[in-house]
């Protein structure tokens, strides 16, 4: 199909996002859906990065994943494999996946499967481990590894059974629409969606006869405890939507944003799989008692896929409760943030109406041209990791992508279309 102008192409991309029909259908071992995940292969967040350039938490996650897989006996062994380049790294985004924070995903970790029924593509994301010492922030102590095993052996299979019991899986758009009206923005705040998810699966899990009662209770307790469980569902959903939208193959709408702690990378519809990168910023925000900006790790994780689809920090107005947590003022500041975002997002998503925004739809279609034109970059809500592996989350805040990514992307696209200086 041909488009006469870039506006037309961008509109087609937006229509593809609106039309998306994401369903959460299963939880499976990563290697069963990602053939690239062979022995000694790990996925990571963000655009491609070498092990030695990873920040400490991401390296810590690698150690944890190796211990979980049993490729090494102990930390020393794991470090040896990593430092001698015995581990192959692939960005999550290259294999239909996304990963929060470090995004380190190994073959046997369970992943959520979201199918975009409109386009027929799938996307994957590992499950949220809760808060405190967790792998995604670089922790790899015994408790972390044990939890990962429990997720593989209990949580994954039980959720898989529950999801399969739903005909066609769980309609994610419906959940998102519900939760956005309950004050979630799906990056920093997912509590409403997580509860709504629990509401859907709890009766089914309770009735699973082939699962021991103890395990059912454990799973339900875990879901009830994990406020951010839905974040990873939202991420897989974003990936499934944006990958489908990218098939339009034209225009300047951003189809992926992610960070690896070293670089921020974006893709635009007209440039396919090419990454446009620039050094990441460090998040600004509020720190838990005892920590300060000096302890903060640089921006990291694939979770900015939520802002790519038009929620997260962009939809700050949907979640006024978050604004204080991320240190950006009150309701009016949230309103201002979202209003400002309408200058760089070219549409509204009618599927996700925001009551606190007078039922305006969430932002849709981040136009790289508009970012460069206005100098306004999208606001990304984010957790802040300690720069030393294992400390975990030390605060929350907002971060903006470096504008150079967008400048590089539109310049490359213009050149592709015949622009000469």
């Amino acid at each position, binding site marked *: 199909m041909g488009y006469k102008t870039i506006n037309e192409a961008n509109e087609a991309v937006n229509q593809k996002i609106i039309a998306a029909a994401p369903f959460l259908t299963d939880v499976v071992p990563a290697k069963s859906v990602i053939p690239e995940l062979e022995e000694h292969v790990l996925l990571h967040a963000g655009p491609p990065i070498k092990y030695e350039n990873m920040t400490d938490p991401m390296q810590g996650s690698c150690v944890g994943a190796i211990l979980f897989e049993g490729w090494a006996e102990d930390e020393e062994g794991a470090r040896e494999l990593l430092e001698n380049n015995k581990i192959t790294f692939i960005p999550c985004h290259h294999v239909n996946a996304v990963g929060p924070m470090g995004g380190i995903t190994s073959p046997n970790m369970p992943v959520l499967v979201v199918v975009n029924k409109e386009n027929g593509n799938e996307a994957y994301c590992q499950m949220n481990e809760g808060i*405190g010492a967790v792998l995604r922030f670089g922790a790899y102590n015994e408790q972390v590894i044990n939890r990962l095993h429990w997720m593989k052996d209990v949580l994954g299979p039980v959720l898989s059974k529950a999801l399969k019991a739903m005909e066609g899986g769980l309609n994610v758009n419906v959940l998102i629409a519900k939760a956005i009206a309950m004050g979630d923005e799906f990056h920093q705040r997912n509590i409403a969606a997580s509860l709504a998810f629990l509401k859907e699966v709890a009766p089914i899990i309770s009735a699973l006869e082939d699962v021991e009662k103890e395990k059912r209770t454990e799973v339900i307790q875990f879901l009830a405890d994990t406020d951010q469980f839905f974040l990873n569902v939202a991420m897989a959903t974003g990936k499934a939507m944006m990958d489908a939208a990218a098939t339009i193959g034209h225009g300047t709408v951003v189809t992926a944003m992610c960070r690896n702690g070293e670089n921020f990378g974006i893709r635009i519809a007209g440039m396919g799989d090419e990454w446009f990168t620039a050094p990441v910023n460090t998040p600004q925000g509020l720190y838990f008692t005892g920590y300060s900006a000096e302890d903060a790790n640089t921006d990291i994780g694939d979770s900015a896929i939520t802002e790519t689809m038009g929620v997260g920090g962009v939809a700050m107005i949907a979640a006024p409760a978050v604004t204080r947590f991320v240190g950006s003022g009150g309701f009016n500041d949230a309103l201002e943030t979202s209003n400002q975002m309408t200058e760089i997002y070219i549409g509204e998503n009618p599927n996700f109406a925001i009551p606190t925004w007078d039922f305006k739809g969430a932002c849709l279609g981040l136009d790289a041209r508009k970012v460069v034109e206005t100098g306004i970059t999208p606001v990304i809500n984010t957790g802040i990791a300690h720069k030393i592996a294992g400390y975990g989350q030390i605060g929350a805040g907002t971060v903006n992508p470096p504008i150079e990514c967008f400048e590089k992307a539109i310049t490359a696209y213009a050149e592709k279309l015949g622009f000469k200086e």
Partner: protein
Amino acid sequence: MILETSAIGSVALELLIEGKKFTIHSIFEKGWNIIDCNEELIFLGTDENGTFPFGILLDPQTKQKAKAEIEAGDTFIVRNKHLSHNRLDIKFDNTKILPLNTDFEHANINILKENMQQISFESYESTDFESIRVSELICKLQDASGNLEDEFRYFIGRGQGLTPTGDDILVGILYGHFINPFIASNHLKTLGKLIEEPLTTIVSKRFLTCALEGLFSSKITQLQHDSSLESLKSLMKVGSSSGKDTLYGIWMALNKE
């Protein structure tokens, strides 16, 4: 506008003598403080930070409505079991009285200690309240000999916030004492005498006087009935650091040598 209260603390109720005048001292997100001529303080507001013996509990809507009408410095007069303000009347005649929760014997110290292990207090090492200092105080508290005035003066009123960190830690230590007594009574007397001096904020003083009598906020007494990690986390969420500071005090008290 006539507004209903949801519940009232016993300390607050004792202060609400017919005809007595209170002034609004400070207004916060979650409620406001009034003080009488002796600077005795009552908090009116929601229970997001727990309920207090010196508190009057309002539901969020009531709090919001009332807050729109009041300003610091306004007066309330107690009339016919109402707190009367020139634009508001807050009724407390038929309200329920908050339980005191002095059933410290119900505390399960072992589970509490076990669950507290999941919480890291490491960040205190780089502050004025490093663990050696706190445990030294706790150690001395057990021994009736000596006078701890200097030590108390160090803690009282020290640190960030409306209830300075040092005070919150002391409240935590006192709670540790009530569930597992260890403080020699002369030290409690010294502390009681010291907090009559202007060493800390009125609010903080209030918490400390209550704590000396074994009266704590519901977020703290909750630990007696449910020692789970959830209760601990819920206490941690109080204030910006107060909850965690209190918890640190309890932790240090329970882990004394």
